[in-house]
């Protein structure tokens, strides 16, 4: 695996972790009717979701890696 592909894989994992965090925050905030829940969703959840999506788009547009590889999966 090349260094570039390795970096892309790390970025993909980072994107996934950010999105998972954002979605978890959203799920927690939706269990609660309070201004703090709105702030939690809007500031923390929104930031994680936006960052995760942006990292994925960056990966898709500017980087080579798992999403661009034509390799067949290892059996």
């Amino acid at each position, binding site marked *: 695996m090349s260094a570039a592909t390795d970096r892309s894989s790390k970025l993909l994992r980072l994107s996934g972790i950010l*999105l*998972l965090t954002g979605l978890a925050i*959203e799920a927690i*905030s939706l269990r609660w009717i*309070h*201004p703090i829940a709105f702030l939690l969703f809007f500031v923390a959840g929104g930031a994680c*979701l936006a960052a995760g999506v942006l990292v994925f788009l960056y990966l898709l547009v500017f980087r080579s890696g*798992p999403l661009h590889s034509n390799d067949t*999966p290892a059996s």
Partner: protein
Amino acid sequence: MPGPLAILFVLLGTTIVLLLVLVARASLLHTPAGKVLASLAFFALPVVCGLWGLSEHLERSKQTVFCLSCHIMEPYGQSLFADNPMSIPAAHFQNHRIPVDEACYTCHTNYALYGTIRVKLHGLRHIYVQYFGTAMQPIHLYDPYNNRECLHCHEGARSFENDTHAALLDQIKNNQLSCVSSGCHDVIHNIDSVNKSKPWRPVK
């Protein structure tokens, strides 16, 4: 039939599972189907979940329990149960002239273009003041109460058609004379008397 919130939670769960699978098994991304799945899990579904969550939170922020969840608003919530037919908020709330679940929002929103956005921004200011500043003592509206919010429902209603309103209609519409002026409908959230009288309690 499951409600929108249940569907949103199912969508959140599905997205989380997909993300976990794709993060754990990156080799799946090498297949065309995996790439489509990645676009869904890393982009489309989180965007849909985020926007749906935002919409859900904005709808919740209209609820009476949301407004009254801050300690400073408690007496205003209690004033809705005042046993006084002359109290405008209490009479509206107790007689279901406004939706009980969205009592605060119905009267304190802004019935103008982009009014909802303006009141939401005011709401963010409330949150800022509540947690990072010092609230006004006593709290009061940022702007004088606009008759437009009353006329939104009352204008054209049979109960509004009387000689007094007809004679003053232009002044009322131009906000030259407030609906809540002294001598008119002037018993508004009367906080001082909230704890002095027995509140109305709905029969279950």
